[in-house]
């Protein structure tokens, strides 16, 4: 008997659908949404931003290019006619720039939620009518509220992102995907703190389209040229 069972090849066992290997990423083909950044897609479970799961984006400073990380995906959703909700954004969205980025404005809802940001998010996620919900809960949102959001979004075709500060990185969170962003030398440093699948040790460096011309050296002598031309400062180098 044993002679018959032996030829079961390890590769065959591994190919079975119910065997999950620790070194592969969970694949969720239907729910993932291509991020538009190939390097990032390769690291995200399912090859893109997850839909129906909460994504936590931890960033302390703004203006690093954090929205450009999401913009291609948002533009795609917008093209399909999906609703996009911005809950309690800390600044005013500048409509022409969003339109230039390919987001159709008549489907962008800005919710000035105040203290009710968590409640609003939950309602928006549970409604299932939104393609993407981005939230900036100002006063901080605790793990219990995040858990509620995760429950609300499960099974919905919604891209849900919550923006939090880096200080929260050490605290446990129910969000299946957590990403910390920081400014690199000339690019955006993306660290995946938590994902379904093996953990990622090495941070990604994404080069995003940035406005203006990058100086050859950010703190080089070229700045002094500009400094001398105080009347009408022009582009550096």
């Amino acid at each position, binding site marked *: 008997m044993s002679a018959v069972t032996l030829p079961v090849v390890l590769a065959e066992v591994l190919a079975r659908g119910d065997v999950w290997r620790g070194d592969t990423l969970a694949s969720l083909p239907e729910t993932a949404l291509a991020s538009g950044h190939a390097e990032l897609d390769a690291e995200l479970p399912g090859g893109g931003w997850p839909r129906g799961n909460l994504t936590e984006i931890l960033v302390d*400073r*703004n*203006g*690093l*290019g954090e*929205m*450009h990380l999401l913009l291609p995906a948002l533009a795609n959703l917008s093209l399909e006619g999906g*609703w996009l909700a911005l809950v309690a954004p*800390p*600044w*005013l*969205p*500048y*409509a*022409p*720039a*969003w*339109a230039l*980025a390919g987001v*159709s*404005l*008549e*489907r*962008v*809802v*800005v*919710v*000035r*939620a*105040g203290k*009710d940001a968590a*409640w609003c998010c939950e*309602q*928006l996620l*549970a*409604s*299932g*009518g*939104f393609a993407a919900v981005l939230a900036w809960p100002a006063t901080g949102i605790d793990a219990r509220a995040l858990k509620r959001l995760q429950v609300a979004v499960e099974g*919905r075709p919604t891209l849900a992102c919550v923006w939090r500060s880096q200080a929260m990185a050490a605290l446990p969170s129910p969000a299946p995907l957590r990403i910390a962003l*920081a*400014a*690199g030398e000339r690019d955006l440093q993306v660290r995946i703190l938590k994902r379904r699948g093996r953990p990622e040790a090495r941070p990604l460096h994404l080069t995003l389209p*940035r*406005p*203006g*011309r*990058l*100086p050859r050296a*950010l*703190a080089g002598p070229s*700045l002094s040229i*500009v*400094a001398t031309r*105080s009347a*009408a*400062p*022009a*582009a*550096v180098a």
Partner: protein
Amino acid sequence: MALHGLACWAGRFTPTLSVLPPATLLLEISGCLRLFGGAAQIVEQALAGCAEQSFTVAWAAGPTPLGVFWLASANAGVVYQKLPDLQVALTALPCQVAGWPDETLARLGAFGLKNLGDLRKLPAAGLRRRLGNAPMDDLARAWGELPHPQRAFIFPEVFLQKIELPARVEHAEALAFAAQRLFSALLGWLQARQLLVRACTLELTHDDGSHTDLPLRFAEPTADELRFSRLLREHLGRLQLSAPVAALSLHADEVLGKPGESAPLFDQAVAGEGALLCLERLRARLGQDAVQVLAQRPDYRPECATHSQAIDEKMTAFSPSTVTIKGARPLWLLPAPQALAEVAGRPSWHGRLSLLSSAERLESGWWDEGENQATGDVRRDYFVARNPLGQWVWIFRDAQAWYLHGLFA
């Protein structure tokens, strides 16, 4: 008044109904049996609805209006599908049920006729001579031998219903039950008239005679009871009553015709309630202005280029802006330009800002110069800049100083 409201409510079953004061409603349901799946279903729904509004009902259903009226008066509570069944049931009824004058009833008593069946057995011609035509005609109508046209209830052009509360109500939430009755009537009225409501007002009359108006607006025209009650609960939850409430009235402010719609052939399961309904609820809780849709205005001045509009079911179509933008534009703007400190003649924000683009001059807005709260005439040179922390910002310089205006997020 209550009967009137109930008639409006009953509009959900059939558009053809009659009100027989003081306390009877006659619904013509033969035209909508198929829609509801039979008389029993209609009766069941109607009784459940009445119970919800805490009305006690005696009812009967059958082929002749007068016959079922008499049977309902005797609290029969049976659906008579066929005329013969109804006639059999009628024979057992006492003569008093018909509501004839006392004199007639006294004479019938003297003849020894106790129920309608006894009356039917006697020759009609002789009875007509003794009692007059009215009772015999009634009898023929009830038996279905004479036609019996009914005066149809006309659904009012404008919906305005009022109910007096049996007791003074001090908590807003407690109003929900009474208000629900008004909304039920509104729904029936909408269905009978084939209308949808977009805005309505619930007026609370306090016991000191003052009024509080509670306007309810829906994101899209609707005739959905669940939606009414959900929005109502949101509003009542936020309401602080200045005085106990004595009466409620509901007025439909904006109604429009229901567009014709085909039912889908295949079930399209939509999980959740959908975007518009959700936004409606958020708006009820946060206020009308807190939930808005983005739009752009053709204006070069950044603070004027964004225009937030209320959500309407008919969103204005996206009109391409006539302003062509060549320079870089940030996704986020600060609510107001923030003055920047200067270090050694250079603008500084979390460290020295290095300028990454040439100046882009925006000079516009002479037309609203000096107007209240307008941006006015601006003359600014905009730059893309980056600070040592890696933040890309949009800054400008005018005659006075450097300002931070946006973030390239």
